Every structure is written in structure tokens, then in C-alpha cells.
């Protein structure tokens, strides 16, 4: 049998049903593993062992009575520390909110509890999902299980590191400029940013209202679909929530890619922002694999990464300023330096400039929609480089913005990043798939076909 810590959510669920493993046994095993490994990884800000064991006991009892809620019943989940989990602090990894105890669960947490999932605790993030990696915060930054000297990506750093290291099979993250897909890319796992409006953001500390998305980080594509099934759904109290009935996100996973048209956005990594050669080689290999599986891959063109990036920055900093202005005025020293530096530009952007960015945004959305009328899914880079060393600040500053994720926060299309190989330095390289609005199922279908055809999801970091 697979070591319990490497079981996917789907496999754990099957083991519970077959009575070869119980939720309590799994949680105890993961708590022991966390005790051994997390001092090296800093994935957790706050482990809730007691709450997790209580929930696991309840799940175990219900499953034994045949009252199985679904495939996440008894499955441990890690939660980025910007989501409210009732009675636990939501610190956003910041001194500013160090004593901020959540009164109620975020909607996505409520939905996971309804599905029977076990909340393990709160995970490391960049400060307010923006400023990091930083060493001047109340908690240390998370580290990459493939090499703890390296950055695990961010801002959902603990979610990526913990899933990758086998501290829990699935986690929740948020994504405003790529913060679910970045740790998925750096840690060699799966990160899915759903279509904007598919998952409620209520109870998640906002960074940028029109760019924020909630999404899962998992070790398999099937688990990403399971998580999405649990957390998606219209929330009338989230103004950005879409009144969609989209469901059963895993329904196409076994269909393969034969007959699908895939648009390869080469200019992102070839000319807009030339990628590390091993990333480029990895992307070419993804294209070859998908063609071998029966897809038609053709080159397509979108607006440049510079265009998307400029718009993402103006919108993000303006909206974030509107949230943080009172604290930045009164207690600027309570922020870490990086977060402060990234929030302050919003103070100097005019209303006209913000609206101008939103007007250009609509044109970029139209340009991506035009391309997605001719192809079913886009294939492109996620990160342009393997992750940097945490202690190499200049290299982190250079590589962190070298990414092609922010375009799909600007447009709101569903986008998934996953492992596409290992660099010569033993660090993951990645690929990104992007789909039409509310067609997350087809994005997952392509990702699943790639996953089946390659060995990457079976690789684990050399961490024990």
C-alpha cells in the first residue's frame, strides 16, 4: 500500500470505504509527519491538531455508520491563513492582524466541512497574500520540499509546501496574480484557479476585489476536480459570485485529448519574457505529449505579457490600497517591508488611471475570448524559471515577476498549473492550461490526459 501521506484524496476516500485506513489513523499519521518535517518547511502558521482529530473522529463514526458524505469525507485539508476558520486567528501572516480571531467560517470552509473534510490548520502565506517571501514577519516563510533552501512559490506558500511534502493531500489557496499556480509550479503539484465567480470569496481576506480567486492545490488533477466540486457554487452574498450551475468538474477526466484544439501561446515564454531553457524544453515536451495523445496543437497569439502585467499591477495596487489605506496611514511599521513596498504604490494611482486600466482590461478580455473561439484550451508557461533560493534576494526579485499567470486574473478565465518536469538542479518546472469561462472541466480534462501520459505526479520530493 502507498504510504498514507502520499495518498491522494481520492485514494484516501477509497481506503476509508474499504476500511483499510480510517480518518483518525490518517490524521494521526499526518500530525506525526508534520511534527517531523514542518520545522524544516514552515508550512503551518497554526496547526489545529485537536480540531482535526475531533473532525476525524466524527467522520470516522459517520463513515462506519454508512453515512458517507462524499469523496472528501474524512480527508485532511490545509487552509491558507487568509481564510476565516471559526475560532482560529486569521493573521494573513501579518503583525497587523495577529489577534484577529475569526467568528465564522469562510464559505469555502463551510462547504468543505459539509463535505466532511477535516481542517488541519492555517498555512503560511505572503503577508496579506502579497508581500513575501519575507523574514521580518511574525512567522517565517515556508520552504520548498524539493530543496528547503528554495522558495516554494507564493503567495499560497504553505499550501504548496504542505501538499508537496505530504502534510495533507489537498489545500486551499487564493490567486490574485498567480498565487495558487505559483506554488503549484514551484512545488511540482497541481494548482487550479477557477473561473472568476465560480468559488465564493466571502470570508477570505481580500487583496484585490476584481482579481481575487479561491482555488485548490492538490497532488493530482482528479483531486483538484473533487475540491472544486465541493467549493464551487453561487453565493448571493459575494458580489462577484456567478449564478452558475457548473458542477461535476471531473466528468471529462477520462476522455483524453483526441480531437481537442490546443493553442500554444509561445510568445509569452519565447519573446515577451524569454524563459529558462529547461522551462522552454519542458513546454515543448508538453506540446509533443499532447499531440501524441491526439490533440491538435497550434500556435496562437494573445496581447503581450507586459500589457497584462501593467494592468494587473494598476488594478491590484489600487484595490489593495482602498483596503489597507487606514492601516498604512496609522501603523505602517506593522507591515513587513516587502508588503509595505507593494501596497504603497496604490496611494499614488489616480481614479482616472484605475478606470483606464479597467477599460483596457475589457479589450484584453475580448482578445483572449477571440482566440478561445478557435481553440478549446490554451497551453502556456506558468513560471519562467525554477524557484530561486530564499536567501538570494536579488534572484528572487528577478524571477518572481517572470510569470504568465497574471493574464488570467485580468481576464478571469480558468487556469491550471502543474508539474512538467524536473530541472537539472532537481526543482520542478511547470506548464499552464487555460480554458473558456466556466469550462473548468475541459481544463481539468487536458491536465488529466497530460498527467496520465507522464510520470511527474508520481515523483515526490526527497524529504522523507
Amino acid at each position, binding site marked *: 500500500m502507498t504510504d498514507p501521506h502520499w495518498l491522494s484524496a481520492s485514494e484516501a476516500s477509497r481506503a476509508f470505504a474499504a476500511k483499510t485506513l480510517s480518518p483518525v489513523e490518517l490524521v494521526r499519521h499526518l500530525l506525526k509527519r508534520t511534527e517531523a518535517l514542518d520545522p524544516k518547511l514552515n508550512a503551518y502558521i497554526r496547526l489545529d491538531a485537536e480540531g482535526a482529530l475531533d473532525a476525524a473522529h466524527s467522520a470516522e463514526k459517520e463513515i462506519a455508520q454508512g453515512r458517507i458524505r462524499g469523496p472528501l469525507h474524512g480527508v485532511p485539508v490545509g487552509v491558507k491563513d487568509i481564510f476565516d476558520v471559526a475560532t482560529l486567528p486569521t493573521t494573513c501572516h501579518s503583525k497587523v492582524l495577529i489577534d484577529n480571531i475569526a467568528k465564522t467560517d469562510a464559505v469555502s470552509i463551510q462547504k468543505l466541512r459539509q463535505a466532511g473534510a477535516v481542517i488541519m490548520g492555517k498555512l503560511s502565506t505572503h503577508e496579506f497574500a502579497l508581500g513575501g517571501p519575507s523574514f521580518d514577519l511574525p512567522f517565517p516563510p515556508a520552504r520548498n520540499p524539493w530543496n528547503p533552501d528554495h522558495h516554494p512559490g507564493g503567495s499560497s506558500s504553505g499550501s504548496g509546501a504542505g501538499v508537496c511534502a505530504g502534510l495533507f493531500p489537498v489545500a486551499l489557496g487564493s490567486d490574485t496574480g498567480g498565487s495558487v499556480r505559483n506554488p503549484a509550479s514551484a512545488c511540482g503539484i497541481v494548482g487550479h484557479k477557477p473561473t472568476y465567480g465560480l468559488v465564493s470569496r466571502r470570508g477570505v481576506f481580500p487583496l484585490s476585489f*476584481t482579481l481575487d480567486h479561491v482555488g485548490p492545490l492538490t497532488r493530482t488533477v482528479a483531486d483538484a476536480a473533487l475540491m472544486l466540486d465541493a467549493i464551487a457554487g453561487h453565493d*448571493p452574498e*459575494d*458580489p*462577484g*459570485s456567478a*449564478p452558475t450551475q457548473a458542477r461535476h468538474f471531473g466528468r471529462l477526466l477520462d476522455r483524453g485529448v483526441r480531437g481537442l484544439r490546443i493553442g500554444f501561446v509561445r510568445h509569452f515564454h519565447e519573446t515577451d519574457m524569454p524563459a529558462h531553457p529547461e522551462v522552454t524544453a519542458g513546454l515543448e515536451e508538453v506540446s509533443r505529449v499532447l499531440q501524441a495523445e491526439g490533440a491538435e496543437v497550434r500556435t496562437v497569439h494573445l496581447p503581450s505579457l*507586459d*500589457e497584462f*502585467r*501593467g*494592468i494587473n*499591477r*494598476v488594478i491590484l*495596487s489600487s484595490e489593495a490600497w482602498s483596503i489597507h*489605506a487606514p492601516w*498604512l*496611514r*496609522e501603523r*505602517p*511599521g506593522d507591515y513587513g*517591508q516587502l508588503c*509595505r*513596498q507593494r501596497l*504603497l*504604490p*496604490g*496611494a*499614488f*494611482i*489616480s481614479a482616472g*488611471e484605475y*478606470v*483606464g*486600466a*479597467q*477599460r*483596457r*482590461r*475589457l*479589450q484584453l*478580455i475580448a482578445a483572449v475570448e477571440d482566440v478561445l473561439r478557435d481553440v478549446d484550451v490554451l497551453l502556456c508557461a506558468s513560471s519562467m524559471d525554477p524557484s530561486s533560493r530564499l536567501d538570494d534576494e536579488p534572484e528572487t526579485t528577478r524571477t518572481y515577476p517572470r510569470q504568465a499567470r497574471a493574464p488570467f486574473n485580468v481576464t478571469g478565465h480558468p487556469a491550471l498549473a502543474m508539474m512538467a518536469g524536473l530541472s537539472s538542479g532537481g526543482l520542478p518546472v511547470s506548464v499552464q492550461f487555460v480554458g473558456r469561462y466556466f469550462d473548468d472541466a475541459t481544463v481539468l480534462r487536458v491536465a488529466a490526459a497530460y498527467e496520465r501520459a507522464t510520470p511527474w505526479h508520481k515523483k515526490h520530493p526527497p524529504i522523507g
Partner: protein
Amino acid sequence: MDPTLLLALVRAAGLEKALAEFPDDVASAASQAMANAGAVQVPTDPRAEPWPPMRPGVGL
């Protein structure tokens, strides 16, 4: 950025304390904001609308 202009912008934003405690961060933010906003190709067509559109009754 011109220091007089920077000071005026800081006062308008209420960031005097931040300027006193972290002058380099504030000055750098002002320059960065100018660069970021300047990089956006704002539509020249006056009819080009912003995203998201107003949707009366939705999300209330």
C-alpha cells in the same frame, strides 16, 4: 520624483507618518505607481467601457 510633488501627494494620501518612518519606501512607491500607470495603453475610443460592467440587482 520631484520632492515637492511627492510631499503634496503624500499629504493628499494621508501618508505623512509612512513618509517620516519609511521615506525610501514611499518615494519608491510613488515612482513605481507612475511607471505602472504609464505602462497601461488606455483605450483612445471614448466609448470603450471599463470592466466589470454595472449589473443592477446582481450580487445584492
